[in-house]
């Protein structure tokens, strides 16, 4: 009875907000086709893939079941632990530093009083988002290469010790974090800026009347009010913590093995492992591993957030 009532309320909600649902329809269709309908094919992660059996039923009944064999090639590798650790560590740094800088930028932009300057500052900050990693890799090369590097030459002129940046693995997590933050923070700050724009102006007004300074309003009023958005964005990022930024790492590091110790991530390792084999079953196995870990991370983080900061929880 209760279920019937619930279904009824959903239907009446759809009837009441049919245009809103219609707007959501393409996204729902997209998710249904490319996400949910593909779930059943995850069985190939446990099979030896055979190109002759492309239909689901044929796969189910005719492909050879191999248990966890398709996972073995990755977990048997002596590099599995290192690339998993690098993926988690780099993504953790990206999330923490990226979120901090984006929120800071949003707060600063919100405090700008000259509208023209605010707009141009925003445009300038957005610009790096549109530069490809390949172009940025050339910029890095012009900064750090032995032959052309501006930084290398400058350090030489200042009498500092020569550093071969492209063989110094320990320096690269910092370089990657700085570059990624510079590239993406402008774009990400827009979301937080939108959240700030949604704050009731009377709250800020009240704070001002009560004698709060602009800094106090920003840190004691604005920041707490956008924290739910910050938390939701962070939780969504945590869901993809097992997926590295392949485009960035491959453009910067490529096959420079001397940097693998700190920069080789699951995605780049898999690219090297699978490009000569191209086995869909193994690709599915590792994709599944990444998804499951991401799912667990999101659920776990959300549970923690729900307990200590319910407004910021996803559900």
């Amino acid at each position, binding site marked *: 009875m209760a279920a019937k009532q619930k279904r009824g309320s959903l239907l009446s909600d759809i009837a009441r907000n049919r*245009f809103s649902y*219609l*707007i959501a*329809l*393409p996204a729902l*269709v*997209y998710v249904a086709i490319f996400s949910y309908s593909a779930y059943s094919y995850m069985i190939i992660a446990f099979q*030896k*893939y*055979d*190109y*002759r059996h*492309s*239909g689901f039923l044929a796969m189910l009944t005719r492909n050879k079941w191999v248990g966890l064999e398709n996972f*073995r*090639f*990755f977990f*048997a*590798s*002596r*590099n599995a632990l290192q690339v998993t650790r690098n993926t988690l560590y780099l993504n953790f740094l990206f999330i923490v530093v990226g979120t901090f800088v984006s929120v800071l930028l949003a707060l600063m932009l919100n405090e700008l009083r000259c509208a023209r300057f605010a707009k141009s500052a925003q445009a300038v900050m957005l610009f790096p988002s549109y530069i490809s990693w*390949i172009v940025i*890799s*050339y910029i890095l*090369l012009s900064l750090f*290469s*032995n*032959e052309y590097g501006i930084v290398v030459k400058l350090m030489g002129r200042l009498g500092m010790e020569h550093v*071969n*940046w*492209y*063989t110094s693995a320990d320096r690269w997590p910092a370089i990657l974090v700085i570059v990624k933050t510079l590239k993406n923070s402008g774009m990400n700050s827009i979301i937080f800026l939108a959240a700030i724009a949604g704050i009731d102006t009377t709250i800020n007004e009240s704070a001002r009347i009560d004698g709060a300074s602009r800094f106090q309003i920003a840190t004691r009023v604005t920041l707490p009010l956008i924290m739910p958005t910050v938390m939701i964005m962070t939780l969504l990022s945590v869901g993809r913590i097992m997926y590295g930024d392949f485009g960035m790492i*491959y*453009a*910067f*590091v*490529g*096959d*420079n*093995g*001397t940097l*693998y*110790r700190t920069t*080789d991530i699951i995605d780049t*390792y898999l690219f*090297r*492992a699978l*490009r*000569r*084999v*191209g*086995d*869909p079953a*193994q690709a599915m196995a590792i994709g599944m591993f990444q998804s499951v870990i991401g799912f667990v991370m999101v659920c776990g983080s959300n549970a923690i957030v729900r307990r200590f900061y319910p407004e910021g929880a996803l559900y």
Partner: protein
Amino acid sequence: MKRLKVSRIMNVHGFRACLAAVLGMLVLAAALVSGCAQGSPQGAGDPPGTERPSEGSPSGGAPDSGGASAGAQGAPAEVAPLLYVAPGDAPKDLDAALLAINAQLAEDGVGIALQLQYTPWDAWDQKINLMLSTGEKFDMFEVMNDRVSLSNYASRNALADLTGLIGEYGANIAAHNPQLAMDSVTIDGKLYAIPAFWFESATNPEITIRTDILEKYGQPLPATFDELTEVFEHVMGEWEGARKPYIGLSAGGNTLFFNIAEKAYDEWPFVVYDKVFFVAQDGSVANYYETDVFRKNAANAKLWYDKGLISPDTISLVVGTSGDLEKQRLEAGDWLVHAGTLSDINPLKANYPEITADDFQSLDFAPEKPRVRPYGTRNMNAVPAASEHPDAAVKFHNWLLDSQDHYDLFFYGRAGIDYNPVGERSRELIVDPSTNQPPYFFSDWMSGNIAFIRTASTMPKVTAQTLYTLNGSAVDGYASSFTFNAESVQTQFTDVQTAITAVMAPIALGVQDYGSNIGAALDELRAAGVDELVAEFKRQLEGSMR
């Protein structure tokens, strides 16, 4: 009442806004679906009026947004369509050229109508995998053994067995491909592809030197590695250009690191496969990094690195970037020695307007010793198991190799429009200024044959001689008809390759000293599983020889 009116106006505006948004979303959804859908090869690239064969025709295989395709016009019902899926971007005049090709095929009564579908390189591996795994109907595709090998596809039952078809329809294929090339497409006694025996692989170690630079700096043509070192050092010291003429090497590139002197070693002849497997002509297999050959190569690399002949950035030049930087250096003409061959002198003319195709020489430090052919071919055309007329691919290849005219038409297009023949083995490109390419061409490396290939007139003569003429004195490498399948040792293969780029590359490129670093580097390689890997290679090689 007034409030109601305002609200109604609001609703009308809201409704319009909503409607506009919904329409926008629908357009986006339609674009998304059409972009992702498996369309037909008769796409935008088809000439008007093209009819798609209805029965048994390829139903899918649409190029994605970056791809292009074209089909045969008015193919009669009994003509089988041949949908050939190739990597890269379609040439500008594909449709017009295909009309000419299909007209010739029809005139010759081959009974096939060619359709070409291009898939951009960045999506190639995924796209072809998807097409094979979804059972899409297409008839021929490119296999590159240095990417996903033929044996890999065959082991997952992706390919049609062509043994009987080549026997029945492929007399020219058998006639123009040496046994070594046919062996390269044979797995367990079955022919799974048609070889593209388009160049002579007996070229290692490749060393091209610029004679115009030697002349400019008053240096003789070196005959030994020591002489080359001396000449190169002199040129480097006197170099007038802004960019130093380092030899082009890269950690992740295709060169076997630094190997240019190895033909003069006592151990020659031998071949090193996948930067790991050292195979001597007596069939013995070893870990390359444990051989004396590697020790000598590393010592030579160190000598050149210390003399400043190898770029100080050689270890850090990553594939994408280094490829471009090396290419820039090469095309700018800022080099004396190149560990490879040059295919076109045109780009060099910007800085060296007087340069000609004769200004290059290939160095051979032991001309009395034969070169070794490491493989028959690494490129081939395979037929998917789902193809409804696998004979079409065989018939097409047989037609291609039937005459020079057929070959010219398919690969170089229409004489006078896409190219001009120059003599029997060369051609002059007719370049469309809008694309800087001929209006139509098909790359020889995909399906070509060395017996018919025409080299561009702007190619250095030494390249044409080295790559596109069969070397009568070359010997087939012991493992030249064998392709290693790393499937069973995939983890070790990846880990060993990772260790090579991490710890061996600095030694192989002369950045680190061999003596003090090889011990630890070999330990790394062993920990990564190099011994199991070499044992598996040996086992498979011995099995294939049996």
